């Protein structure tokens, strides 16, 4: 958990659970590469908007809902972490 990448992944998992009110699920239950929407974790379009808002608030970054690659950033915890890292560095 000391490695910053793991810490960020873990924080994003907690954010997903908290922002979306997931019940009976802990950070350990979400895989870094697990698909978040549809299959996998089973999140839906309202969750996508809610999660986008939570990420923007927590990390102070701007997400363009219409950008083509936004969808890809929300594929998994790992892709979200990479996106947050890139945005914060920019």
């Amino acid at each position, binding site marked *: 958990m000391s490695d910053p990448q793991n810490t960020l992944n873990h924080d994003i998992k907690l954010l997903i659970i908290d922002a979306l*009110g997931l*019940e009976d699920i802990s950070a350990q239950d979400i895989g870094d590469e697990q698909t978040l929407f549809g299959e996998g974790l*089973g999140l*839906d379009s*309202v969750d996508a*908007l*809610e999660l986008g*808002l939570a990420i*923007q608030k927590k990390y102070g970054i701007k997400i363009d809902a219409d950008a083509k690659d936004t969808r890809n950033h929300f594929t998994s915890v790992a892709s979200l972490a990479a996106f947050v890292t890139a945005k914060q560095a920019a």
Partner: protein
Amino acid sequence: MQRRRLSRLARMAFAVGWPLAEGLQDVPLVFVSRHGETPRTFEILSDLANEQPLSPTQFSLSVHNAVIGLWSIMRGETSEMTALAAAGDGFEQGVLEAACLLGEGAPAVLLIVTEEQPPAAYGPRIDDVPFAYALGLLLTPGDEWQLHLGDNAGAVPSSEPHALSWLRCLLKGDSTCTHTWKSRTWNWQRKP
């Protein structure tokens, strides 16, 4: 996965309605709440006042018929459903609506009346919710009860929510029960 979206009010409504609908299919639902999800409304308005972005989840569930929408999704129920926000006699208005559905041929109609304890800010304006409550009734055609609407001839308005007052009558075995709201007096009569 939808259960997490249920507010306390929705959970109360589901808690009373679910066991009644268990094993039944195609049961129309009449959902009655005068004030609806005041805690959710208050959160949304607070975000607006603080110029914060609105929660998409809160927003998507902020309409009065969100509870019946979730009921439909979670139960796979596609029967007619209606959400009413009547005044202090929403219970009777809901029964009337349900009776109309029975009159149209529905074998049974589920009626859910529920109110949530409003946030403190609404306190001075909402005085008819002593505590959060929900009542679920599965109504079927019959003549066990009669409900008659008359003019209010100077009767004192009921001090407790009509749904709870009626439940008290039912449990005590009273043969009549009277509820007055503004110009309307509802007379309940149980067949002897």
